[in-house]
């Protein structure tokens, strides 16, 4: 069997006495949509920060696409094809939606020590950026400053920026955060269209969305992965139900 795209082994991180990440083992296979769920305080944010390269683990390894990336900083991981979106919308608020995505394209188009030609007239950046915006359904809003986009649109832009880097793995940090029911549904529908052609690691609170989208689910409780399996297996797992779903009746 081929090596999984992402393999996390023995990952641990403590803050004082708190073991925020405790011997985490995680595998994301090429092509799958893998979800991580866990109650508040389970250590999802800490885990994501280590996966994305914002936080150094105390112990353990992260292998991505056959390479050890444990020591790589965030920009280098991005350039290797590991893209992420943020739980709290993090876009360039005063740039237009198109500028935002064009920057993500530019980050993966060689070095940017190009001092002379105007970047906004550069079709090598604008055309792919426009295509991604169209794909996520923001095409008509390309020239609107990101700050003026509706919350749901900003969440779409968040995903668009990650996609524009043509990642091998897309880490989605609560893509539905703060969305209304309708916006959520539309985002889930969109992510469903990505499924299969884009490997995704989805961290999400919304159980309906997780069980709709994920091929496999890992459950994080107190910094540990307590179970990994198909949505059906996870639903049926008594340990998970006790620890997380809170259905102890």
């Amino acid at each position, binding site marked *: 069997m081929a090596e999984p795209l992402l393999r996390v082994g023995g990952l641990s991180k403590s803050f004082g006495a708190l073991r925020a990440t405790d011997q985490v083992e995680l595998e994301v296979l090429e092509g799958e949509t893998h979800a991580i769920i866990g109650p508040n305080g389970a250590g999802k944010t800490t885990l994501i920060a280590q996966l994305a390269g914002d936080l150094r683990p105390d112990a353990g390894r992260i292998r991505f696409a056959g390479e050890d990336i444990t020591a790589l900083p965030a*920009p280098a991981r991005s350039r290797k094809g590991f893209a992420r979106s*943020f739980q709290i919308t993090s876009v*360039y608020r005063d740039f237009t939606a198109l500028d935002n995505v*064009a920057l993500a394209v530019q980050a993966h188009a060689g070095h*940017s020590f190009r001092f002379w030609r105007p970047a906004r007239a550069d079709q090598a*950046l604008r055309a792919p950026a426009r295509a991604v915006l169209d794909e996520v359904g923001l095409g008509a809003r390309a020239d609107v400053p990101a700050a003026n986009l509706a919350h749901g649109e900003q969440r779409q832009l968040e995903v668009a920026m*990650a996609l*524009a*880097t043509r990642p091998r793995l897309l880490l989605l940090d609560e893509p539905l955060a703060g969305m209304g029911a309708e916006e959520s549904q539309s985002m889930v529908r969109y992510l469903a269209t990505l499924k299969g052609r884009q490997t995704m690691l989805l961290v999400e609170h919304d159980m309906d969305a997780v069980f709709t989208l994920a091929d496999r689910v890992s459950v994080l409780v107190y910094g540990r992965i307590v179970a990994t399996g198909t949505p059906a297996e996870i639903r049926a797992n008594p340990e998970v139900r006790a620890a997380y779903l809170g259905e102890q009746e």
Partner: protein
Amino acid sequence: MRLGRRRIVLLALVLLFAAVPPAAALLGQPFYVDLVRRVMIYAIAAVSLDLILGYGGMVSFGHAAYLGVGAYAVTILAVYGVHSALVQWPVAIGASMLLALAIGAVSIRASGIYFIMITLAFTQMLYYLGVSLDAFGGDNGMRLPMRSQFGGLIDLRNGTQFYYLVLALLVLAVLLVRRLVDSRFGMVIRAAKSNEARTRAIGFTPYPYRLAAFVISGGLCGLAGALLINHTAYLTPDLMHWTRSGELLFMVILGGIGSTLGPVLGALVLLVLENALSSWTEHWQIILGPFLVLVVLFARRGLAGLLWREERDG
């Protein structure tokens, strides 16, 4: 591009500056040529500061260092008998860029108040170095032995010729910085200023881009230093005093941070006001101070914000 009004202001400024020498001659007030030439030289320095401050988010409180290094480079070469501008000015620019590389390499890893303090500390060190350089005037300063030479092509002793040379360089500086900030390179430093975490997440390492911007800014300010020493013909470590760095910051803030052309207006208004008020009362700073506070409070985007719409970066 929404450049309409900014283009108009640029054109109006160029025409205004170009009209100063004949107007001054007509009015029999050659002093104005001198004043506006000084304005334009400081404007180049302010534009260079805006590149890193307005677009890179780097608040350099030590930009006078490059004015000083540019001026010292020209004077030291002149003392050793090298008078050609074609040698002096590139050396002034190159030395300033080297210094910016050293200061930037250390300071850019820090941020916020630490960045400000490191840039200030380096400049103070250079100031005291200048004070201690007795061979080059020490504390009292010294005359520039001879103004930079252009092989007879341009004569800097001729106030008008020098004036139009400075005007041409100012226009070039504004266009250069504009070009830079709109390029791929410029987009990276603006993005890193607006949202560093996102910029790293999409795959940029901001540090080398910021450092490059810092070095370019230093070089441009070094050119202003080379012009300034030819303007005053008198070298003094005061060029590098921290209050001078503060004045440059004020020109940028008054004119409008991140507007390229705004700092030119800032330099013009600040120096002309300073001049007018100081001829009226010796306590001119009592008037200038509150004026600046009002501008900062009520015109957040400076004079540029009142005249044209600048796209914003956050």
